[in-house]
């Protein structure tokens, strides 16, 4: 299919469908009930997960959203960016195709307009399952508009007042602003605005080397921008370990991203029709020319303009809404979930916390927030994923750790795919086979970390893991191989693995 056909063939309806699903034009809010069991403020991943849980409990629900159903994740964040990442990866693969004995005529190149069309189509498709229509069909009253608490048990939405037994604040977070001189005046892109245009910036300067900055830097560089990424710290992805961050640094450089570590942005100015980012690194001043500047320095909770004071809900500008271990705010009838109150701002945590908040709001017995075992992944190439403890965190708690590493270059599945950069590192409590955490750097680390999530949630230790069959060849076989390395070290005199229930059931089924 030609690029032109992709464009013309992309139904102009994609965008219409999308809007119809996430925020229909000419929407009329329903007439509120006298009182709702649950009013949810914010229809992002947390709000939607809460609504789903509340539907199961048979509650009367009002869901209030000021912008689009799906929140940042669907509309501005994870989903759109990952669609671009896919195009960037494909392009890089095509440029590399000759290594696989595959030739293609002409030069592989990206058309950002077409990429954006695909992004909108995908966004629309994903929006369908959580569309306004479906929410309404579940009996949820959906209100669009700015919401403000007008009292301890009342929410004002436009001219309407929603009374509630319980409320859940799930307003999420937004890109953090900066006080660096010049930014507000000259203007900059954030994850909230980067997907507006169809043109690739010629020269893009990215401020912030966290997951978002790194994903965007690599992807836009692959798609054709000249990207410089400026990071205030000694490494990218400060939350991840050295060996992972160093691989990422090299992969960014490989794709033509100019990387500036240990570099602080001190100002932005316009001069000679260009934008200049002024930086300082180890006392040395420098300036970076750019057509566009992207700011990705973290997220700040959406707590303003919500009338939280009127509802007696305590909050702080940076930390967000204060919640207790049950996700209850200082108003016993109001709970919070997701980015607006949690330090770990991830879609999966937002959803899990929302389900817990709803359960706690209505159950006789409240459950505490667990120490979330959070698999997370940065979608660079290779992807960088982590779950559980880092070695440093364990050592700070005086836990001795032995890490078992398998390099992807030693995994048949990765060798065959030609995607053999990276590693699987499983952190094990010394003197036992208990898995404390794991880091995966691999092309599909986002999937592999989920296997480790299941393993850890299932309390499967290295001893059992070594015996769990994996399909062959597969990149995820690296996880088993790490356990095999553990077993090799701990001798052949391992006690037999306990008979698993699944195996018993399978044996019973055969007889």
């Amino acid at each position, binding site marked *: 299919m030609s690029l032109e056909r992709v464009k013309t063939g992309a139904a102009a309806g994609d965008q219409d469908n999308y809007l119809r699903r996430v925020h229909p034009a000419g929407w009329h809010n329903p007439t509120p009930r006298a009182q709702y069991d649950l009013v949810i403020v914010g229809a992002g991943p947390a709000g939607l997960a809460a609504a789903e849980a509340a539907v199961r409990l048979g509650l009367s629900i009002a869901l209030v959203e000021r912008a689009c159903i799906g929140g940042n994740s669907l509309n501005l964040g994870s989903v759109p960016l990952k669609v671009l990442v896919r195009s960037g990866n494909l392009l890089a693969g095509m440029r590399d195709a000759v290594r696989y004995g595959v030739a293609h005529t002409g030069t592989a190149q990206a058309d950002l307009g077409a990429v954006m069309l695909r992004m909108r189509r995908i966004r629309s498709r994903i929006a369908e399952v959580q569309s306004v229509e479906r929410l309404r069909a579940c009996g949820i009253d959906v209100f669009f508009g700015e919401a403000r608490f007008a009292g301890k048990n009342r929410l004002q939405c436009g001219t309407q007042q929603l009374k509630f037994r319980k409320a859940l604040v799930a307003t999420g977070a937004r890109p953090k602003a900066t006080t660096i001189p010049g930014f507000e005046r000259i203007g900059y892109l954030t994850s909230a605005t980067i997907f507006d245009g169809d043109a690739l910036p010629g020269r893009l300067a990215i401020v912030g080397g966290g997951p978002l900055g790194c994903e965007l830097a690599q992807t836009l560089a692959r798609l054709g921008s000249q990207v410089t990424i400026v990071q205030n710290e000694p490494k990218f992805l400060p939350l991840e370990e050295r060996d992972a961050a160093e691989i990422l640094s090299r992969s960014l450089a490989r794709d033509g991203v100019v990387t500036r570590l240990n570099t602080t942005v001190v100002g932005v100015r316009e001069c000679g029709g260009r934008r200049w980012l002024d930086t300082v690194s180890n006392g040395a001043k420098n300036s970076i020319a750019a057509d566009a500047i992207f700011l990705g320095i973290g997220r700040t909770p959406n707590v303003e303009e919500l009338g939280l004071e009127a509802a007696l809900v305590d909050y702080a500008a940076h930390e967000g809404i204060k919640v207790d271990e049950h996700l209850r705010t200082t108003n016993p009838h109001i709970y919070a979930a997701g980015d607006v109150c949690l330090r770990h701002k991830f879609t999966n945590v937002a959803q899990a916390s929302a389900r817990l908040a709803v359960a706690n709001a209505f159950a006789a017995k409240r459950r505490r927030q667990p120490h979330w075992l959070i698999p997370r992944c940065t979608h660079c190439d290779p992807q960088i994923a982590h779950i559980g403890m880092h070695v440093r965190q364990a050592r700070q708690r005086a836990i001795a750790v*032995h890490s078992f590493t398998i390099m992807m270059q030693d995994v048949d599945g990765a060798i065959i795919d030609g995607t053999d950069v990276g590693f699987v590192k499983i952190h094990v409590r010394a003197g036992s086979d208990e898995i404390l955490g794991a880091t995966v750097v691999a092309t599909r680390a986002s999937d592999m970390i989920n296997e480790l999530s299941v393993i850890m949630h299932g309390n499967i230790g290295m001893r059992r893991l070594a015996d769990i069959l994996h399909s062959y060849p597969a990149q995820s076989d690296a996880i088993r191989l790490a356990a095999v390395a553990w077993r090799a070290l701990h001798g052949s005199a391992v006690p037999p693995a306990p008979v698993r229930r699944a195996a018993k059931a399978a044996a019973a089924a055969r007889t």
Partner: protein
Amino acid sequence: MPDAAAMPDDVTILDDAAMIERLQRGAFAYFTSYANPENGLIADTSRVDSPCSIAVVGFALSCYVVAVRRGWLSREDAALRTLKAVDFFWRSANSDRADATGYKGFYYHFLDMHSGRRVWQCELSLIDTALLLAGMLCAACFFDADSEPEAQIRRLVHDLYRRADWRWAQNDSGTLAQGWKPEGGFLHYGWEGYNEATILYVLGGGSPTHALPPSSFAAWTITYQWENLLGRNILYSGPLFTHLFSHAWLDFRGIRDEFMREAASDYFENTRSAIAIQREYAARNPRGFAGYGADLWGVTAGDGPGPDEMQSSGRDRRCFGYMSRGVPYGPDDGTIAPWVMAATLPFDADSALRGTRSLLARYPQVLRDDQFTSGFNPSLTEQATGWLSEGCYGLDQGLLVMMIENQRTGLIWQLMRGCAPIRRGLRRSGFAGGWLDDVA
């Protein structure tokens, strides 16, 4: 000069002892060839207009000791060379001025060979100062005679060591800063994971005047990872030199800090593991580089081709120029350091000899005038010889001289075992056992 028959071009026809002696002496020649006799400074590399690297001076001071023992320098000559250098540093400008030689008892990484002042707006370097001071302390231990030059060496080294203000270099944090610049203050890249800096913390801990608290070494080692990698247990660090620099002076056999006690290993054994991993990686050779094998390995920091892509055997390769290479995590562009296998002699003599012999038999071009070039990349076939680094680096040559001597006689290790600051610093950093428990 020995006669030509005793000095064949091909060193590999010599027996092990003779070959090693040749290589050691060839490496030592660097320090007499690239020295400024006026101030004792030694050039960083053999290239024209190379500035002095203070770390190379530290290696030189240790190598003079070796040369006396080997009969390549007279004791008087070596003492005078040493005295020139320590006297230079003692008298050098030590202030916060941008063109000084040092500040707070530390020194700039690179100095002008003649004026001895800072060049390139480089940083006041903690690790390089530590290597310099280690060399000075080694000389002070060796030159124990009553003669005036030797007594003066000991006095000056004593004062130079006392002058370094390690507490200042902590910049109010747990670990040490990596460096400082008059233009922007402290550089702090964060300490994450093991590297060559053990000797830095040991010297800081042993200071009689500004000793680092034991918590400082602990604040670094908390970031260590005990890892099982390619079937070996290791405290990993990629570049091979990081497993050798502190070890050139410190005999880690049998002494352990808290981390190694917990891991039931020691830093000597750990270097053996690093060697095994280098060999295993080279045997597996995942990137298909030319030459690599169980007997041809040695990925470390050093000169390299690049940064542009260079054509190699029909494949595009990305090369990195001067950088810190490491395996198995990378980066690895097919460049090995030809000298580094021989520098592992005291840890695994068999592997070191086999590797060095196989390298020299296959690629004799890596040795020029009995000196190893810094980097070599046989995968790059633009030139028939593969890519070869221009000239030699003082760090490589110094490490090689010292390590060969540690293998032959243990001279440096023995001297440093008797060095009070080293013993104090090791104990303060939590090391115990072995020779450290013997009464000095």
